[in-house]
């Protein structure tokens, strides 16, 4: 599955998107756990309460299923303008 990242998360990853997350990850929490293992530089920010899952441009809970989403993103706390 494709996952996009914003702000400091994209900087830490060195990329806006990742395409190597397995398609059989069920929920946002599963994705978060996989990312923390596969990309250790994301482990601390993923554990931060301000880091959120966005599915189809809506901020949602980590326990939500990923299968229906066309757009999966992980965002850090927003800074505002």
């Amino acid at each position, binding site marked *: 599955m494709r996952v996009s990242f914003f702000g*400091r998360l*994209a900087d830490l990853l060195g990329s806006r998107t990742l395409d190597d997350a397995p398609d059989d990850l069920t929920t946002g929490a599963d994705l978060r756990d996989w990312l923390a293992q596969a990309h250790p530089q994301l482990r601390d920010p993923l554990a931060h309460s301000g880091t959120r899952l966005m599915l189809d441009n809506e901020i949602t809970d980590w326990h939500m299923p990923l299968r229906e989403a066309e757009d999966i993103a992980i*965002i850090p706390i927003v800074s*505002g303008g």
Partner: protein
Amino acid sequence: MTRRTIIELSAQPFDADAIAAAFRQGIEEAGAVVTFLGQVSREEVDNPVTALHLDHKPEATLASIERIADNAEARWPLIKSCIIHRVGTVQIGQPIVFVGCAARHRRDAFEAADYLMDFLKSDVLLWKKEIRGETADWIEPRQQDYTDKKRWES
């Protein structure tokens, strides 16, 4: 209800004077037009900010601004309003945000512009990086930004 706020995310520098002039067109019924321009300021400190970078997620960022605009329209009788926000890299002295509010009476226009800026500073889906020469830091809202926003809760 149709939204009366013009909203734009701009990846390029914008001409605030031209936008303000265009905003004033066709609103003869307005007795008050308030326009606000925020720009990237030069700091008088060691290792000052040389530019800001605003990361965004286009559809979601726009939606977050639309929610703020809709709340302002519901709260004040605005004839017209406008929010232009930069994204990408913004240099010192360049405009970062333009807000315009037109209303029949000045208090409504002043308050709506103030409200819009308080929420734009804290709630918009943007991620801001301060660039200081060769280094850069992602920043989060200041406590003052949250305090400013709380003024509108009563």
